[in-house]
Every structure is written in C-alpha cells, then in structure tokens.
C-alpha cells in the first residue's frame, strides 16, 4: 500500500521539469516533496515508537527500579502533555538549559540510577536496536502534537543559551571551514536534491523542529535531534559533539526559539 504510494509520488517528482538553478524561481519539486511528507505522516511507523516510549516511561527500570512518571520536563513532575513544545528551557535543579532528550537522560540518571556513560555509549538507533531515550523522546514529543512551539526566553540563562546557540550556529571551523550557516544560513539552496532550510529565518526554522524525532524509511530507524546534530557535525568535518551536551542544548535553543509560534505536528517521517 505504502509502496504504491511511494512509487506514485516518486513518478510525479521524476516527471517534474528541472528548473535552472536561478535564485528567484521557486523549485516545483519542493511542493511535491512536501505533499509526499504529508501523506507519509499518516500511519507513520514513529507511532510504534511512541507506544514503546510510553511503556518505557511507566516501567520500573534501572538500578533504582523506578519509573519516569515523576520526571519533571519543565511543566511539573509527571506532566508530559505539552512539555516537548516548551523545550529547551532552564532547569534550576541542575542549573542548566536542557533540550528534551537531555532532560530525559537526566531523569533516567536521577530517578532510575542509569549512568551517563552507559546511555552515551551507543545513543543512536541501528537496524537492530533503538536506544531507550529515543523511544522515550518520541513518546514525549507525540504528547505535544498540535501545540505551538514555545521554547521560553524568560530566564536570563535561556536568553544566554539562545545567543550562545546562535554563535555556535555561525562558528566556522573544521577541515572544510563550515559552520551550520554554511548550509542553513541562506535561502533556496539545496545539497544534491535535499533542500536546505534557512534556520536563521523563523518561517524556515520550523523545519529544524518539525519532523523530529523522525522515522527514517532508509533502514527503518527512529532518529531524534541528538542524532541529527551529531550527523551534521560529522558532515561539517568537526570532531564529535557530546551526546545530550550543553552545547547541543544551546544550539537547539537557538533553532527552536526561531521556530516559536509554529504548530508542532508531532514526530515525522523521512526518506
């Protein structure tokens, strides 16, 4: 069923004429890709990971044999509905701005007794294994489906995180002199045939939030923003960013705040 749909969309995209790469003319294939994404978002296999994530949230696990049901994602202990849309945010208990996955990892450590080193060892999905934080963040994200993105900027540390994230975004270094902005700082660019949204602009920054966590059909794996940031830095020819680190929370603050006001449609699906 899905394969017929995929073939149909691929045929439609292949038939679309290639426009010359002029800055002014909009790319007609972009509309086709958007239509493809919307159709594929119905019956998204990410929902399987939402269900798994909810099981993990309620299960007693780890050395402390405790559930995550008292985890405070920013709206009070145990409040999951709407929390993802309001992250990253500042947490006084650890004196740090945290994104969703960093906060989940924090709760797994403090409530359940897991060690950071265990969780950071192999934090990304493979064909045969989906790490628990990935299923958990998929569940948490799904509980903000249909809500407006509203990462707060009330606390001075939240404002610091935004500005630091912006500086990180624009920092050119590495073997290729790339910053995030090298690919994501201009309009109407694409790498091969993959469109590159301009994350410095609010109406395009929503693409940094929407679609994540995302089910990737290539390999049938669930990936979160922590994976996306890691893989971006690999392609930027940088060394590796720490999993669930403050650097990535700051970067995610910059991207999410830029997207504030847009409605989050929940976990996405990708090629």
């Amino acid at each position: 069923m899905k394969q017929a749909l995929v073939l149909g969309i691929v045929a439609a995209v292949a038939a679309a004429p290639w426009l010359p790469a002029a800055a002014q003319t909009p790319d007609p294939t972009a509309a086709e890709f958007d239509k493809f994404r919307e159709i594929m978002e119905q019956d998204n296999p990410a929902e399987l990971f939402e269900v798994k994530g909810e099981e993990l949230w309620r299960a007693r696990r780890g050395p402390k044999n405790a559930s995550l049901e008292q985890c405070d994602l920013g709206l009070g202990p145990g409040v999951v509905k709407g929390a993802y849309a309001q992250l990253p945010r500042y947490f006084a208990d650890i004196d740090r701005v945290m994104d969703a996955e960093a906060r989940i990892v924090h709760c797994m450590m403090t409530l359940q007794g897991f060690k950071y080193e265990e969780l950071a060892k192999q934090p990304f999905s493979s064909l045969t294994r989906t790490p628990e934080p990935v299923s958990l963040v998929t569940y948490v994200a799904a509980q903000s489906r249909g809500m407006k993105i509203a990462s707060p900027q009330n606390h001075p540390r939240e404002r610091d995180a935004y500005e630091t994230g912006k500086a990180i975004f624009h920092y050119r270094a590495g073997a290729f002199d790339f910053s995030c902005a090298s690919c994501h700082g201009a309009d109407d660019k694409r790498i091969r045939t993959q469109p590159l949204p301009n994350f410095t602009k609010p109406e395009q920054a929503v693409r940094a939030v929407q679609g994540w966590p995302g089910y990737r059909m290539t390999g049938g794996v669930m990936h979160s923003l922590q994976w996306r940031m890691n893989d971006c830095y690999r392609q930027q020819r940088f060394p590796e960013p720490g999993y669930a680190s403050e650097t990535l929370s700051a970067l995610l603050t910059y991207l999410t705040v830029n997207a504030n006001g847009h409605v989050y449609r929940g976990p996405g699906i990708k090629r």
Partner: protein
Amino acid sequence: MRRASVVSLACVALLLASCAAPPSRDYQPDALALMKRDFQAKGSAGMDRLNEDSVQAACNKFQDDPPQEVADKLQKEQFSAIKWPADGKLLGDWKAGERIAQNGQGMAWNDKGGVGGSCYNCHQVGPRESSFGTVGPSLYQFAKKRGYGADIQRYAYGKIYNAKAYNLCSQMPRFGHVRALTEQQMKDLTALLMDPASPVNQ
C-alpha cells in the same frame, strides 16, 4: 554572506522578542568554551579542528563580510601557500574527475583525505547529472564560457586547491590546502572543467 543585516531586517519586520534588542555582548567566547568542553576527538577528526586558523578567525569576526584590506592581505597569504604541480601540467583525466566530483566522502571522522571532492553536493557540473546542489554556482560549460587558456586552467586548479585565495569567506572548502584531495585528483577535476572533450564543455 551578510548575516548581520539580514537578521536585523528580519527582527524589524517580525518584531520577535528573541531579537528585539541586539545581544549585549559577543557570545563567541562562551560558544567556544562550551564546544571545547563538550566535543571529543573521533577518528581522524581531532580537537584541533575547533581552533580557528587566520581565515576562519577573520570570517567569524566579520560574519563573512571582512573589510577589503583584511580580505586582500589574507587572500594573498592563502594564494602564496598554493602548491602548483611541479611538472607544470594542470590537466589530468576528466573521466576520473567525474568520479571524484560524484564522491561526497572524505575528511570526516569516519574516513580520511584523498577520497572525494563532493562537487555535486553544491554545484551542477556535467550535463547528465540532475542530482546536483545549488549552494555554489553552476559549473556547466565552465571552459566553454570562460576560455580554454592556461590562465583559466590556473584559475580552476587554484580555486579547487584553495577557494579562499580568491574569495576569503567563500563557503567552498580548501581541498588542496587541507589535503582533502591529492594533486592528481585536483588535476583530474581541473580536466573535468577545462578539457574540451569533457562532457562539461559539450
């Protein structure tokens, strides 16, 4: 890339609370401190890659829009560091060049140098490849448009070796300068752009 003016215009137009006022200070030192603490070396990508060299420092400081005298000085330095082939020949094999242009790997933490040029990631090159990026300008009919002379050959090779020698804050990597490509690979790419027989110039 004139980021500062684009962002301030966006602020004025959209009246976002997050950029209603410009930042009180330079946040780059905070950013760098966090990155140095939170990143780790992996494979061939060492922590030294986080350190700015003279080009990166200038482009970061001036947000890719350096003053003319700064650009002139650094471009001259970058140009003088270009190693031209000892045999004076700049054209290799365009067929090999097409394969190098198609290969998007190399210099990441999971591989090494001398692998690929990633050209199609950012540019249109040959006429038969429709899966090309638009980060950089089209290179289709490169020599057909500019001429086949020794001066253009030198420009092509030099640009591949070190794009910053010609445009300080270009987004194009310095393939020769960082040894992402070997001399032979750069000759093959130059041939892809400059050889009259190359499909690029048909």
